[in-house]
C-alpha cells in the first residue's frame, strides 16, 4: 500500500427529483424552452424544492492506492449512486471526485450480452463494453473460456444458455479485466458456491496486484473477508468511515430495529418493536440455524396507544429483497384482542424449509384484515445452513413423497427414502 491517492471525493452529491426521474417537463416544448434557457444561465444546484431527494449528499473521502473498501448501508442509502458517479455513468449534481488510474466498473454482470450472438462473439462484445481492447481479449480468450467452464457451448447463441451459464461466461470476461481501480456492485452474489469462491479469488488476485477495490455488498461476511475499511452510508451521507469490524458493528446495530425503508410515516406508527430475539428449540439465543430446525422469534413491543386486534407479521427476506416466507398471526387464527403498553409476542416457526443463505427479518403489524400499517421495523438477520441447496436451486426445499406409477413397477408409495436426508441430485448445471 502506498500513500498515493486512488480516489479523492469531495462533497459529492446527487439530486433526484421525485415523481419521475429528472426534471418534470410536461411537454417537449417545456423541455426545449428549459434547455435553451439553461444554456444561457448556469444551473444553481443548491436550489431547494420540496420534491427533491438527495440520493447522495456531501460525501467526502479519500482512498489510497491498494486499499480495499467496502461500502455498506441500507437499501436507498446511496451506495449504488456513489458507484455510478465514480464510474461516470451519471454526473454528480455537485462536488467533485478525482480518480487516479484505470477504472473498471462491474455494476451488473452481463449487461450488453446479445442473446442472438454466440458465446464466443459475446466474449468479444462484452469485453469491449467493459473497456478491454480486442487484442487483450484475443490474448485472454482461452483463459476466459476455461474460467467459465462452458467450453462445449462457446459457439452456441447465448439465448440457449441457462441463466447460470450466462452469468458464468459474463463473469469470466469480467474477471479478466485488469483495472487499477475496481468498482464492484454486489456482483459476487451470483453463481453457486464454487463459482463464488472463484470470484472472491479474482478479487484477491487483484488485491495482490495492489489494485484499489471499492465493493458494495449486503453480505457482511464477504465484506469482512475482503475489506480492511468500510464506508457506511446512511441516507446519502457518510455516516462512518473506518475499520471494517467497527463499521459493521455500527451498521448491524442500526439495522436491528430500524424502520423498513419503504415506510414514509415512520414517526406516526403506534407500535414500536423494542427488541427481537431468535431462539432455538433448546431455548438458546442464536443467529445460525440449520435447515429443518424450528425457530422462535420473540418480539418485544410497545404500543404507544391501545390497538385492537393487531395482526403481527414476520417476514424473512433475502439480501436481494425477495421475501422468502412469512408468518402472520391472523392467517394462523391467533387472535390478539388488544395491545397496550409493553408486551412480548412469540412465534415458533414450523421446521424451516429455507435454503442456505442470510435472511433479514422484518416485523410488520397491520390492522385486522391486512389493513392500515401499525408497525414496520427490521429485526436483524440470521443464517441458514444447508449441506446442498442455496438460492441457485430454490428459495425453500422440503421433503416430499415420491412414487413411480409405471406399468411394471408396484404402485405402492415407497417410504424407503424417508430416512435418507436427500435425494441424490444429478449435477445438472454444468
Amino acid at each position, binding site marked *: 500500500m502506498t500513500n498515493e491517492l486512488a480516489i479523492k471525493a469531495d462533497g459529492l452529491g446527487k439530486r*433526484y427529483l421525485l415523481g419521475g*426521474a*429528472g426534471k418534470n*417537463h410536461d411537454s*417537449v416544448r417545456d*423541455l426545449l424552452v428549459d*434547455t435553451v434557457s*439553461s*444554456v444561457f444561465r448556469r*444551473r444553481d*444546484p443548491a436550489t431547494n424544492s420540496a420534491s427533491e431527494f438527495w440520493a447522495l449528499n456531501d460525501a467526502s473521502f479519500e482512498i489510497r492506492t491498494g486499499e480495499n473498501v467496502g461500502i455498506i448501508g441500507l437499501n436507498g442509502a446511496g451506495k449504488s449512486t456513489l458507484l*455510478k*458517479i*465514480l*464510474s*461516470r*455513468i*451519471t*454526473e*454528480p*449534481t*455537485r*462536488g*467533485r*471526485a*478525482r*480518480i*487516479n*488510474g*484505470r*477504472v*473498471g*466498473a462491474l*455494476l*451488473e454482470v452481463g*449487461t*450488453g450480452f*446479445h442473446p*442472438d*450472438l454466440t458465446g464466443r*462473439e459475446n466474449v*468479444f*462484445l462484452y469485453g*469491449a*463494453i*467493459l*473497456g*478491454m*481492447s*480486442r487484442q487483450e481479449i484475443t490474448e485472454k480468450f482461452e483463459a476466459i473460456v476455461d474460467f467459465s467452464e462452458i467450453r462445449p457451448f462457446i459457439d452456441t447463441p447465448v439465448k440457449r444458455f441457462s441463466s447460470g451459464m450466462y452469468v458464468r461466461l459474463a463473469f469470466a470476461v469480467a474477471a479478466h*479485466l485488469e*483495472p*487499477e481501480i475496481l468498482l464492484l456492485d454486489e456482483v459476487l452474489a451470483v453463481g453457486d458456491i464454487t463459482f463464488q469462491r472463484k470470484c472472491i479469488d479474482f478479487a484477491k488476485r487483484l488485491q495482490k496486484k495492489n489494485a484499489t477495490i471499492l465493493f458494495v455488498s449486503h453480505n457482511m461476511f464477504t465484506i469482512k473477508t475482503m475489506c480492511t475499511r468500510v464506508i457506511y452510508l446512511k441516507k446519502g451521507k457518510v455516516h462512518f468511515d473506518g475499520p471494517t469490524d467497527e463499521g459493521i458493528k455500527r451498521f448491524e446495530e442500526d439495522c436491528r430495529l430500524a424502520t423498513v425503508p419503504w415506510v414514509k410515516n415512520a414517526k406516526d406508527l403506534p407500535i414500536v418493536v423494542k427488541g427481537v430475539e431468535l431462539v432455538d428449540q433448546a431455548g438458546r439465543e442464536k443467529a445460525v440455524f440449520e435447515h429443518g430446525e424450528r425457530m422462535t422469534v420473540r418480539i418485544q413491543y410497545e404500543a404507544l396507544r391501545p390497538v385492537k386486534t393487531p395482526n403481527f407479521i414476520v417476514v424473512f427476506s433475502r439480501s436481494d429483497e425477495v421475501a422468502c416466507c412469512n408468518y402472520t398471526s391472523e392467517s394462523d387464527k391467533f387472535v390478539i384482542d388488544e395491545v397496550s403498553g409493553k408486551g412480548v409476542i412469540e412465534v415458533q416457526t414450523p421446521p424451516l424449509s429455507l435454503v442456505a443463505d442470510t435472511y433479514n427479518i422484518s416485523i410488520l403489524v397491520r390492522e385486522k384484515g391486512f389493513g392500515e400499517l401499525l408497525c414496520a421495523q427490521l429485526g436483524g438477520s440470521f443464517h441458514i445452513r444447508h449441506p446442498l441447496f442455496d438460492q441457485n436451486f430454490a428459495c425453500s426445499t422440503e421433503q416430499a413423497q415420491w412414487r413411480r406409477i409405471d406399468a411394471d413397477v408396484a404402485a405402492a408409495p415407497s417410504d424407503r427414502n424417508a430416512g435418507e436426508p436427500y435425494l441424490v441430485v444429478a449435477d445438472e448445471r454444468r
Partner: protein
Amino acid sequence: MTTSASAVTDIRPGKGLLDLDLRGVWRYRELLWILIGRDLKVLYRQAALGAAWAILQPLLAVAIFTVVFGIFARFSSDGVPYSVFAFSALLPWTYFSESVRRSGTGLVNEGDLIRKIYFPRLIISLAGVITPLVDFAVAFVVLIGMMLWYGVMPTWQIVMVVPLLLVTGLLALAIGLWIGPINVRFRDIKHTLPFILQVWMYGSPIIYPLSMIPERWKALYCLNPMVGIIEGFRWAILGKGNLDLTAIGISAVLIVALLASGLIFFRRMERTFADLI
C-alpha cells in the same frame, strides 16, 4: 478502462458548453466498431434468406414504386427508365431514413448499457449512421446492375456518390443527435418518427422529378435538405443535368447548423441519460 495507466479522471457536475469530449469518443472507437459488428451480425440472423434480404429489400421497394407511380400514375422520370430513376433516389433515402431511425432510437434501445456502463453516449448515435452503410453498399451494387440491364451507363460523376453519402450521413447524425435525447425523455418520438419520415419522403423528389415542382415554390421546396442531396445523387449516378448548387448549398448550411447545435444539445442531455432511461 480505456484510459491509459497514468490517467486521471476528473468527475464534476456539468462542464462547459463547448466541452464536447470528442477525444473520449476517439478513445472508445473500438467499442464503436464492435457495436456496429454486433448490429450487422444480428440483422439477418435466424432469417431463412439471411443477408439476401439486403438485396431483396431495395428491389421490392423499387418494384412497388415502379408499378404504382411509374406504370399506373405515369409520373415523369426525366427520360430514364422509371425503375432506375426511382432507385437512384431511393438509395440515399433508404440510407438516410434508416440512419435517422437508428441513431434516433438507439439510446433507448441500449438503455441497459447506458444504465450500467460508462462510455461516450455519442458512440451509439455514430453507430446508428455507420451500420446502414453496409446495406447502402449492397443496394448500390444492385443499382449498378439494374442500370447496366437497362443500358444506362454510369459516368465519371459516379465517384461523387462518396462525398454526397458523407453529407447524407452527417445530416442523419445531426437529426439523430436532436431526437435521440428527446426520445429518452419522451418515447413519443418512437411512434411519430415513422410518419415523419414517410411525409418527408413524399416531400422529397424520390418518386417524382424535381422538375414537377412549380418554379415559384422551388426555393421553399429546397429548404428540405434532402432535396439537394437526392438531386446530387441523381446527377452523380445517372450523369444527367447539372448539379443544383443552390440546393446543395442550402443543405450544407442547414447540416452544419443542425450538427453543431445537435452536438451541444446531446452533450447537455447526455448527463442525465442514465437517470432517465
